Structure formats: structure tokens, C-alpha cells
């Protein structure tokens, strides 16, 4: 029930929303060869969450999930790319498929703490993989620790932990920037 930021671009038909959500959910099962199951799960959660939020927002506005293939979002940064499908597989269309096979790179979207860029692989008309080309992780971690004037509080530089956990706490998973980049990639793949 987190509040979403307003939807941005829009046009097209509403049916796209449903199709997209279904495909994402379906494909998550077989999505990766990623050995790190936690990453896989987090990504699955992110994608499902993103789509659901996205579809909610768009349904609410009676608009569609996907902008037209020719439009790139006005909010993406000027470093946005528009990779055409590779390999140039003869765009075989599986019956009922919405997307052409190939690899599509989304625009670079500003995620406030850095950029997000996703790449989507479409096989047999379905999403077979989603990878991050860019992620907001290039923070300067060598910043000098400034001891707070308040003696009660303690400072440290954050450090990755490797032990297994049962549960993870974090801010809600959906990322508008992720959605933006993914939408851009999928719009290129639209048949």
C-alpha cells in the first residue's frame, strides 16, 4: 500500500497491461541460470512488484502499460540507448506471442541514487531473461567517517554481509526507474 509516484507517459491499449503481467509472472520461474537464488528471488519479486504497481497505476488512469514502440520516455536521461534486436533473428512470431525474439536494451533511467538500465531477452515471444546493465551502486564508500556530535549515535561505513538470512527488510521493491527502463526495452520488442 505504498504510495506510488504518478505515472508518466501513456497511450495505447489497456490489454497490454494484462499480457505483460502474465508474461512476467510466467517467465520468472525459468528466468535464469543465476546461481545465486537470493538474487533471483529478489529480481523476481522486483519484476512482479513492478508490474503490479505499474498495472495498478495505469489501470487507474485507464491507460496502457506500453508506450508506442517509437516513443522513448521523456524522463529518461540523454544517455539513453536504443539497441535494436540482436541477434537479428528472423523475427519469428510464435502464435499468440506479443514480442519479437531478440535482446532489447532499455533506456537509462535516473533512479535518484544512480542510473538503472535493464536488458530484456525475448525468446519464443516471451521474456526469458532480464538483466541489469547499470545499477545505482557506484557510491563513494571511502568517505571519511565523521563522528557525530551526538555521542549516543555510532557511525560506520556499510559493508556487505554474506551470511544467510530468513527474511530481508528494505524499502518497498518497486522502482519507477526500473519500470521505465523495462517499459522502454519491451516497447522495442513489441511485435
Amino acid at each position, binding site marked *: *500500500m*505504498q*504510495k*506510488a*509516484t504518478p505515472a508518466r507517459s501513456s497511450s495505447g491499449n489497456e490489454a497490454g497491461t494484462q499480457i505483460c503481467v502474465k508474461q512476467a509472472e510466467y517467465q520468472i520461474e525459468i528466468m535464469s541460470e543465476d546461481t*545465486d537464488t*537470493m*538474487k533471483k528471488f*529478489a*529480481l523476481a*519479486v*522486483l519484476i*512482479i*512488484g513492478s508490474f*503490479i504497481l505499474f498495472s*495498478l*497505476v495505469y489501470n*487507474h488512469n485507464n491507460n496502457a502499460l506500453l508506450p508506442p514502440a517509437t516513443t522513448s520516455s521523456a524522463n529518461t536521461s540523454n544517455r539513453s540507448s536504443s539497441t535494436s534486436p540482436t541477434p537479428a533473428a528472423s523475427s519469428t512470431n510464435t502464435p499468440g506471442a506479443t514480442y519479437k525474439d531478440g535482446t532489447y536494451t532499455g533506456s537509462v533511467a535516473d*533512479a*535518484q*541514487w*544512480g542510473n*538503472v538500465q535493464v536488458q530484456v531477452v525475448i525468446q519464443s515471444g516471451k521474456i526469458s531473461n532480464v538483466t541489469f546493465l547499470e*545499477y*545505482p*551502486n557506484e*557510491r*563513494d*564508500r571511502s*568517505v571519511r*567517517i565523521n563522528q*557525530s556530535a*551526538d555521542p*549516543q*549515535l*555510532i*557511525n*560506520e*561505513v*556499510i*559493508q*556487505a*554481509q*554474506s*551470511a*544467510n*538470512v*530468513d*527474511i*530481508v*527488510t*528494505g*524499502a*518497498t*521493491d*518497486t*522502482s*519507477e*526507474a*526500473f519500470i521505465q527502463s523495462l517499459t522502454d526495452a519491451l516497447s522495442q520488442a513489441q511485435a
Partner: protein
Amino acid sequence: MKQIRLLMGMPITVEIVDPTAAQDDLEQVFALFVTVDHTFSTYKEDSEIARINRGELAPAQYSADMQTILALSAQTRKETRGYFDIRRNGSIDPSGIVKGWAIQQAAQLLRERGFRHFYIDAGGDIQVVGYNKGYPWHIGIRNPFQRGENVKILALTDRGIATSGTAIRGQHIYDPHQPNTPLLDVASITVIGPNIYEADRFATAAFAMGKEGIRFIARLADFEGYMIDAQARATFTPGFERYVVREP
């Protein structure tokens, strides 16, 4: 027994360790979230909150849950010097308090059904009860800059833990005192409290306070906090370390 459902626009996970857990117990928990969503979702045009915001309901017609949430919101607003405020631009959005409250209700439901060892996680806000096969529940604090990576591992039992932040998501919390100034200093703040309702509402308010939020948490009895700023530095309360699991 463990299950995940997508409700209220987020994954909700329920795990009950007690061997007597049955499918119906999980169904009851998920049904509770569905009901809460139908009442409080600002995205559903037929929700009670949407009808209130359109001026279609008089206060006398509000449901008991709605009255409870509005009262709790008003109380939290006072307790946080106005940093927690569900009012904006002439309408109300109690999302910042409903999630924690719903998890709390769900935990109560499971307790009443006799369960002693379980957790409920709604979009990263968690209530843990009892133990996981004899051990405290191990909870990772996600790195807001690096998905899939934890920066702290905590061992908790019978506590609520909630994280507010921008992470990579768009801004969803703002400072009611300066609604147009984005909150950029803090990447995330995690709050451990006596239960998830308390942890969630104060995490939301503390995030709206910016870097001062962690001091606010430090002043609260029975609460601990771990704040990560935009430069990937953490600031935490003195009692926080007792929950930390050290790397071997």
C-alpha cells in the same frame, strides 16, 4: 509452512513454523490483507478511503477500521511533531500506517489461532514471533544501493522491523513541513520496535525527518534504528548492536 502472495501491490510472505499450521491459517491471513486493501487502497476507486476523499462518506459512516486508522494517524502525527501526516492536497492517504497495522492484525490473528513461531513480511516490513527451529529469526538489512546484498544481519524474536527509504524506488515519503523538497540525505532507515505497527509508523516519520530521524529513534525507549545516508555511511543507535549477528 510458507507462502507468498502478491497483495496490496507487494509480496506478502507468511511462514508458520508450528507443525500444526494448515492452509486455512494462511488463507485467513491473506484474506485479512485483501480486506485491508479494499478499505484503504487509494488506487481502488471503490475503496472506502477513495470514497472519503471524493466526499461521498460522512464521518459517521466510516467503518470501525477506518476510524481506528484515522485515530492512530492523528496520534502518530502528534508523537512525531507533525512529520507523520496523512493529509496532503486536500485528501488523505494513510498508507504509511496501514501496512504496519495490517501486519500487526495478522500476527494477532495467528496468535489467537495458537501459533507461537512465525513471521509475516509485507514488502520488507516484518513481524517476527518466536523462533525459527530454535533460533531467532535472521533478518538482513538490504543495501539500498545494491539489490541482493545485505549490509547487516540481525537476530530477532518477538519484534517488528520496518525500513523506509527511497532505495531505487521513486520518492514515496515527503517531509510534510517542506512537501516540495525531496528527501535526499537518507537512503534508508530501518527501525526495530516492540511490534511492526510501532516500527513501521516511526520508520516512516523518521525518514521524513531526514538525517535527524535517527536521533528521533534514539530518543524513543524500546526502539533501535540503523540509518544509511546517501554516501553509504550508516548511523545507528547504541542499543542496535545487541541484535547484530557478526560475520564468522
